């Protein structure tokens, strides 16, 4: 029984409303990011990019692409393991969608403020590895298999620094709850990025780029050597689901990074209950732009460089970060 605008709403009705709202927010945040990727990428390469769809700036291009995917035939390779092949994209989608449940848009505007908070996000996002491995193996194709293996090795390697970077924030805030973490930053007066977690933020950002298979960590999808990695055999609607999951992942990870390090819905002098969602959207936009910028500027890494970066640099640095944070927490 939750009160919402002074009306008591039945639990199951509220559940349906929340699910629809989370899906709506996901799609609403997704389309601008896809358009941004197309337009920004184009301008960085001295092209114009989408121009005609929708009339102005080609704003309807993501939707036109979506409709195109719906029309295409859904091919299932004869050598594939049909059931696993068909389920894999949805598993990936669900693990990404579930991240939106814990993102606070304002002190009250959150689907569930779990006591588990950020730990729920880390646990749920580890399911995406499973989806990628299933897709890679079940396609019955060597390129897909190698792509799936690379993706799994990469996600295992970068999940550790990701979790360790979050621990620094959790120690400083003293809570796992997402709202609690934002409130701790508002209370402190500055976001954790300035207030002591700058190393944590850099590690979190690099590791989340790798988790999302974004350039310069897009070896699993390296089109010059692996066709399209674990996505090679997918077509039509299932490919669209993978595509949407990737961009939903960008929005979700940016929102989580904003909440953990950039002060979430809080901004100096703005009332979070009114401006919270817009402040968060602006921060997500900045981080998403950063990810797009990196994608169109950096060349792809080599597999050994990628593993060296994770195991020899990021993990030790994040362990030192935890130690320093804990010492400061105890001393001050």
């Amino acid at each position: 029984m939750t009160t919402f605008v002074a009306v008591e709403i039945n639990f199951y009705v509220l559940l349906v409303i929340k699910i629809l709202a989370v899906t709506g927010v996901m799609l609403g945040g997704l389309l601008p990011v896809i358009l941004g990727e197309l337009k920004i990428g184009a301008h960085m390469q001295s092209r114009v990019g989408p121009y005609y769809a929708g009339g102005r700036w080609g704003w309807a291009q993501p939707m036109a692409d979506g409709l195109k995917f719906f029309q295409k035939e859904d091919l299932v390779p004869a050598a594939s393991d049909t059931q696993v092949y068909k389920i894999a994209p949805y598993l990936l989608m669900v693990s990404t969608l579930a991240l939106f449940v814990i993102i606070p848009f304002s002190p009250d505007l959150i689907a569930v403020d779990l006591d588990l908070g950020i730990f729920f996000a880390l646990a749920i996002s580890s399911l995406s590895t499973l989806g990628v491995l299933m897709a890679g193996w079940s396609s019955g194709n060597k390129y897909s298999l190698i792509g799936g293996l690379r993706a799994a090795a990469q996600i295992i390697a970068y999940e550790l620094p990701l979790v360790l970077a979050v621990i620094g924030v959790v120690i400083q805030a003293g809570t796992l709850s997402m709202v609690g973490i934002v409130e701790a930053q508002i209370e402190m007066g500055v976001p954790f990025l300035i207030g002591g977690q700058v190393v944590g933020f850099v590690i979190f950002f690099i590791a989340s780029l790798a988790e999302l298979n974004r350039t310069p960590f897009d070896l699993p999808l390296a089109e010059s050597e692996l066709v399209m990695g674990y996505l090679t055999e997918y077509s039509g609607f299932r490919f669209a689901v993978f595509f949407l999951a990737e961009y939903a992942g960008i929005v979700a990870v940016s929102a989580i990074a904003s909440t953990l390090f950039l002060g979430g819905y809080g901004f100096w002098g703005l009332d979070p209950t009114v401006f919270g969602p817009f402040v968060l959207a602006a921060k997500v936009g900045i981080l998403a732009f950063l990810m797009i910028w990196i994608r169109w500027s950096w060349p792809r890494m080599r597999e050994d460089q990628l593993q060296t970066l994770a195991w020899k640099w990021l993990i030790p640095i994040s362990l030192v970060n935890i130690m320093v944070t804990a010492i400061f927490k105890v001393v001050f």
Partner: protein
Amino acid sequence: MDLSVAQNWFFLIIALFMVAASLVVVISRNVMHAALMLVGALGGSAAIFILLGAEFVAGVLVLVYIGAIIVLFLFGVMITRVPIGRARSLDHDNRWPAAAVAIATFAVLAGSAVAFFGDEEIEGVSAVRTSDIGATIFERFVVPFEVVSFVLLAALIGGIVLARKDPES
């Protein structure tokens, strides 16, 4: 069982699903399918922990078992045997003794649980806060915790020593 409580319905659905998934894990002739159904069974046990109000345990179960151990299983299977696509024979001569052992284990566990608790109503515990679990581990059980982590570290180093072949000089 009181069927007017939503929890009981959810428990019934989850439990039946877990039993089915576990059966497939054992019976399936395809290594990958078995591993994937193991994910289903573990996800079911995480769901039961959530029903019990132990969110943190459910989270740990998903993160450690599904996110790490099963992924490692799949990774190993894909690297070594690469059974792409169709099923490959995966059977065992000891299937009947194994079934007997499984049934006997179930009988012992279920029998002891029923003999001990009977129809007794167990007092409900409200949701466990994560900070309480942390405090319990690091205050009351700090020595066992450190011992476990030491043993795990030793196992880790032992594994590396066994697996690694230094080039002969």
